[in-house]
């Protein structure tokens, strides 16, 4: 950071870029390949996907800020353990809140709330960004990356629920439209785990054919 005197505005173009870039050109899932583990398992229905996305936004942005605030006091040798403790603390909080206010969804998410701890996006952002930047920028970065993760989750969840069970948020859209009488049937295959991978594969395909810079050179 330069030592210029005047304060940067909160939403300067640089900060907005931190927020915007992970949504598209530097998306954590489709470009950086981080955090796939939990992204795929919870997306059979839209509701758990949304809850998962929100949980990750909370955990990542808050732990980014905490790590960034303490970055100068923590000796580099123990930073991994320190980051893990911060993340684990946030995840325990989120888990307890979910159990208290959304028990059904927390049962559906089962072990995947706990697995936010080992979600590579979070460790990756703490290590790569929060350890070297100021709290506000870290907050923006955390928000941007978690949102980039979240929207992929929600898109995958939307298609899998819509095509797989003909509902959106549990509301029977297909039935209301009356397409079953025309001989339409739900594609039960979309609910099965492997289709999550293929859906993400297709999202990557679409994104890369629109933005040719992202294509693997090899």
């Amino acid at each position, binding site marked *: 950071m330069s030592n210029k005197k005047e304060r940067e505005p909160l939403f300067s173009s640089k900060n907005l870029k931190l927020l915007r870039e992970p949504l598209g050109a530097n998306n954590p899932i489709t470009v950086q390949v981080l955090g796939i583990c939990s992204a795929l398992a919870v997306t059979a229905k839209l509701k758990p996907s949304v809850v998962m996305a929100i949980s990750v936004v909370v955990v990542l942005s808050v732990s980014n800020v905490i790590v960034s605030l303490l970055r100068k006091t923590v000796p580099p040798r123990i930073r991994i353990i320190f980051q893990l403790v911060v993340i684990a603390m946030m995840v325990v909080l989120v888990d307890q809140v979910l159990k208290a206010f959304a028990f059904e969804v927390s049962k559906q998410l089962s072990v995947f709330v706990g697995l936010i701890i080992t979600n590579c996006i979070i460790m990756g952002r703490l290590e790569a960004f929060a350890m070297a930047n100021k709290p506000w920028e870290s907050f923006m970065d955390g928000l941007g990356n978690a949102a980039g993760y979240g929207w992929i989750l929600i898109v995958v969840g939307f298609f899998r629920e819509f095509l797989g069970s003909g509902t959106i948020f549990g509301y029977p859209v297909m039935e209301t439209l009356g397409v079953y009488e025309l001989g339409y049937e739900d594609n039960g295959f979309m609910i099965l785990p492997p289709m999550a991978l293929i859906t993400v594969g297709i999202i990557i395909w679409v994104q890369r054919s629109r933005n040719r810079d992202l294509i*693997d050179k090899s």
Partner: protein
Amino acid sequence: MENLINIFVRSVFIDNMVFAYFLGMCSYLAVSKTVKTSVGLGLAVVFVLTITVPVNYLIHNYLLKEGALAWLSESFAGINLSFLSFIMFIAVIASMVQLVEMVIEKFSPALYSSLGIFLPLIAVNCAILGGSLFMVEREYINIGEATVFGFGSGVGFLLAIAGIAAIREKIQYSNVPAPLRGLGITFIITGLMGIAFMSFMGIKL
């Protein structure tokens, strides 16, 4: 004994960490470019899972579970510390990985240098923490079952990562559409492998 074999087969094929639950995907995608390194990582995962799952089993059953502290004194019987399990498990895993690393470095420097960076990275591999969390959720009745489950999950991961690495080595010679090259095609192949693994569903010994 039959029960143990059943758990083993289940955890390798039916509840495969990678294909059924997508755990350990990050390292699965990042390290699967050549067969040799991916087998190295797979073996390290087998090793760490076989150690951490039983250790976490003991911690869960004798320290954290509701009524688990009853062996200390009657008055502790009502205590439920299971909300601490995430922190405890991840601490056990991180320290076990550190320990394993030191032991391997001392007794087998050759293996240590071939595993290289993968060993410390295992601490944040979702498959390891996932193994412990599934162990809690499925309520295995004794430590033998938990150990077999840990070992089996590790073997399942090894199988998956060695398989995808072999396919990726071959696919370099095929003409994949440019936007799908690399990551995209790997996702789709993994999906197809997952569908193939689903044919094991329903097998019971």
